[in-house]
């Protein structure tokens, strides 16, 4: 039972990875592509890791699987933010097809 549900979880995670990989091709602007890469990756890795733990692995393996997943979860949002910031700085200077993805700019005051 655990083996099957674990395998299903890993399959769902792998499917998400494919969706994310399609997203970095399909989305129109570099920033939108950063959305595709950044959202799915940590969730996919966590699904795969939980799947592997549910499926059952060697006692010494569980720790490293959890560690790898935790590292991706903690670092992925930071990486995406840093990259998105760099993308925006570049596209701010050169108004090309990339910058046109930014259709409107709002400023919110509380």
């Amino acid at each position, binding site marked *: 039972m655990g083996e099957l549900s674990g395998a299903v979880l890993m399959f769902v995670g792998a499917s*998400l990875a494919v*969706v*994310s990989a*399609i*997203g970095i091709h*399909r*989305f*129109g*602007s570099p*920033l*939108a592509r*950063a*959305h*595709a890469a*950044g*959202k*799915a990756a*940590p*969730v*996919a890795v966590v699904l795969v890791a939980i799947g592997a733990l549910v499926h059952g692995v060697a*006692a*010494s*393996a*569980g*720790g*490293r699987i*959890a*560690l790898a997943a935790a590292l991706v979860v903690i670092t992925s*949002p*930071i990486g*995406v*933010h840093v990259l*998105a*910031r760099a*993308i*925006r700085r570049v596209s701010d200077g050169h108004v090309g097809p990339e910058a046109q*993805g*930014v*259709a*409107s*700019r*709002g*400023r*919110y*005051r*509380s």
Partner: protein
Amino acid sequence: MTLAIPVRSILILAGVAVWVLLWGTLTVGTVLSGVVVASAPLLLDRQEGGWRRAVHLRPLSALRLFLHVARLAVVGTARVAWEVLTPRNRGVPGEVSVPYGPMTDGQLSLLVGAITVTPGTIVVDIDPDAERVTVHALQLEDATEVAREVLDLRERIVDALPLEEVAA
């Protein structure tokens, strides 16, 4: 209930956890060697670092924050997956600048991370002087809605980790 946890102990605990997870066995030997390995850099650091202080933590609020962000991450993934798989993506992307008010660096880091896992939003710029974050939204229908989500996350973070940081 508010707990004051020295940053030093968090760092050592995290270091020991990583060490034990890498070894893959929980024994007295791995834990003790982990404590030594994790403490060594802190003992060698003679400078006034942030790790000499303590963070305040409300355990229940922190748990709620964790569950909230986990839910947002799942919803965000589902929405981005939907956008990828449907042929036409609706809505125009855009940017909103949101004032976040006084926050410590640690709280701000959490906020930026949380916004980035929230459905369709990424922080693209931080201005600590103006206390503003610029958020890029995949679909910007309503700028106030995005700002409201950011400020909601901000409240949750400040609630889980209150502002005051006192000396350990």
